[in-house]
Structure formats: structure tokens, C-alpha cells
């Protein structure tokens, strides 16, 4: 996992003439729960995003959402709505907002915010001051979700 993240990081650096300046977690600008601009200035990688979405210690989306595109994985949760066709229901900006911090759109939702790093109550020490996903991982997941059309 670590080497994968490292490789992705290098790829991002190589792809850009400048070192990309990620939007910091608590600086993300929401409008009606949506986030218009990319958090990294880089395009998301849908194939990478699929892996992040599936990873139990990363997106772990299947814990709560069914997803026909991941049929090969057993046990899809049913706490949230199915991911099938999310790209038909939401725009890229809305998906970016929902993945980054869904509470901006759905007040009181059970869904964790994947791109905040402050305001936690009693976090385990190793997660203190950290977001669940990196900015690029959010972009990758958004790119993946945009492939889920019905």
C-alpha cells in the first residue's frame, strides 16, 4: 500500500512542472455542499480511485454502499444509497463535496468526512490531525464515481 501511494505521489510530481499545491482539508470551499475546483489541480485517476474506494482502510465505501461495479467483492453494506448510477445523479462538483465532507450537504449524516483533519472528538492518536484520504485520493475516487453511470 505504501509503495503504491509513493508511486502515485511520484507520478503526480512528474506530471506537473510545479509541485502541486493541494487545497488543505479545512480550506476546501463548499457551495451548497459542492466543491467546484479540483483539490490538487490534477485530474483524478479512475482506476486508482476504484482501489481507494475498495480499500478497507481507505474509502471502505462497500461498508455502507452497494456497488454493482464491485460485484467480485462479497458483502456490500446497505447503510447508504447504492453507488450504481451516482454519476447520473450528481455532478463532479457535488461528488467532490460529498466525498470531502458530506455533512455540508446532508446534515447529520452518518457518512464520515474523508477530507477534514480537524474537529474530531477523541480521535485515536495515530489519526489525530489527519484526513482519512489525501487530496489526490479524493480526486481519484471522484474520477471513479464519475464512471458509475446506469
Amino acid at each position, binding site marked *: 500500500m505504501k509503495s503504491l501511494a509513493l508511486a502515485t505521489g511520484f507520478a503526480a510530481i512528474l506530471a506537473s512542472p510545479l509541485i502541486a499545491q493541494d487545497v488543505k482539508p479545512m480550506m476546501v470551499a463548499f457551495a451548497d*455542499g459542492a466543491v467546484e475546483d479540483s483539490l490538487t489541480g490534477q485530474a483524478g485517476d479512475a482506476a486508482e480511485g476504484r482501489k481507494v474506494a475498495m480499500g478497507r482502510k481507505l474509502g471502505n465505501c*462497500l*461498508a*455502507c454502499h452497494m456497488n454493482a461495479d464491485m460485484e467480485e467483492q*462479497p*458483502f*456490500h*453494506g*446497505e*447503510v*447508504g*444509497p*447504492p453507488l450504481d448510477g451516482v454519476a447520473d*445523479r450528481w455532478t463532479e462538483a457535488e461528488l467532490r463535496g460529498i466525498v470531502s465532507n458530506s455533512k455540508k*450537504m*446532508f*446534515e447529520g*449524516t*452518518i457518512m*464520515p*468526512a474523508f477530507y477534514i483533519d480537524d474537529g*474530531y*472528538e*477523541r*480521535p*485515536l*492518536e495515530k*489519526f489525530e490531525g*489527519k484526513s*482519512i484520504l489525501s487530496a489526490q485520493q479524493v480526486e481519484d475516487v471522484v474520477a471513479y464515481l464519475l464512471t458509475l453511470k446506469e
Partner: protein
Amino acid sequence: MKKYLVATAAIFAASLAYAGEDSTLAIEGEVFVTEVDAPEHMENVSTLYSGWTFRADETQALQLDDFDNPAFLFLDQAIDQWDTVEGSEGKSCSTCHEDVADFAGLKSTLPRVEDGELVTMTNLVNECVTDRMGAEPWKYSGAKMSAMTALIAHQSRGMTMNVAIEGDAAPFWERGKELYYTRVGQLDMACSNCHEDNYGNMIRADHLSQGQINGFPLYRLKNAKINTTHGRFKGCMSNIRATPFKEGSEEFKALELYIASRGQGLSVETPAVRN
């Protein structure tokens, strides 16, 4: 937008059948209450379901016969411990307590307030171990304590959960309620998010229950041992990436009282079997 999410969730909740909806928990002819109207103090839940009703048939089956129930191996160890002398006073449990069966009715009313303090069964056992037996206190959820509290709680099996929540228990109960609804950890979830808003739904391979504790201490297939309420609370908190409170802490004792009160009317099932 908000409406869409709520409507979808409702459809899923409605289409789901509990695994043991039609089955009855009966052991040696004794029928247990696994479904009952919620007590008045519960604002968002109308029917209580024992954790037993959410479990798969094969897990349920293990609890139907005491010979199949692996928890009884640990209860046997506690029966041996009952007669074991420990500490400076040369006493065992049986020196003072003739028959463990005399503790029928204790589990169903714990935790309770004594001299202004909220006490759990573990506190009561350790009071004996230290003050009367002159021994070192047993570890809160250690093997010895888990087995002994399971044996004592088992004497109340079939009795109705009935903890006091008013009078001097009220401030502890309020504290427990506050903790139940407080979101914690990196995943930012409260007990209520899973066990009140989403019981009956699958979270990955797990069928979310109401988080009832009428069957505790109980045997979990997951770790093949007796599990205590505070041990379970700790596990839940770690899962949502929160720093757990300590076992035996004021926070967990208050939470135990509050959650016990959310099970008022269910039968004590100790020792239950869960996954």
C-alpha cells in the same frame, strides 16, 4: 437532495427481514423475551430487539442448548474459582456466599447507585476480592472477572432487565445518554448512528443490532472468549478510530446504565452467543 437519501434508506430498512424474525429463543422450555415495546424514555425507537434476533441461524442455535453454548466452559472455570481461596483473609467467594444462585436478580438491576456512586457487577466483585478477601483486584475485563461476572449474571437468566434510572441514578443516566449521542473518532460516529438509526441494516458483512447488553457477559465467536460490556464498548470506539474510555471508567459505567435502560423489558440472556 436530503429527501432522496432518507427515502432510499427507508426503502432498505423496510425491505429487510431480521434473521430470526420468526424464531423463538427458548432454552430448556423457558421462552425469552427477544422483542418487546420500547420503554417510554426512548424517543426514537418503538420496538426492542435482542441482539439474538439479528444473528445468523447457526449462531442463534449455539445459544439454544447449554451443552452447545461455548460460554459454559468459562462458567465452569468460574464455578471452580468460586471455591478458590485467595488473599490474606483465607477466604473464597463461597466462604460468605453459600450459593451463587442467591444472586438471581442482580444482573437485571445493574449498574446501580450505592452511596452516591454508580457500581457495576465488576465493581461489586472486586469489592469482595479486595476488602473481604484481602487479594489484589481482578483486571476489569480479565479472564477471571469475565467468567465470574458471567456466572453471577447467568443466575438472572430469563429475568427482565429493569435498571433504576430515576432518583440518584438520574445524573448518571443523563451522562450515559449524552455519551450515547456524542459523535467521536476520525469516523465521527455516535452509538446512535449505527444502533438506533441503522439497526437491521448490513454494514459490510455485519448485521447491525440495537446494541443491547441483556446477554452480557457473552461468548463471541470472533475471539472465542467471554466478552464484557466495557470490552465491547472499547472495540466499538476503536473501530470508529476514537480513543476509547477506560474499562471501569465513569464514562463507560454511565454508558452501561443508559444502554441497559434501553433494554428494559428484554430478558437477561447471559451467557448469550454472538458473532
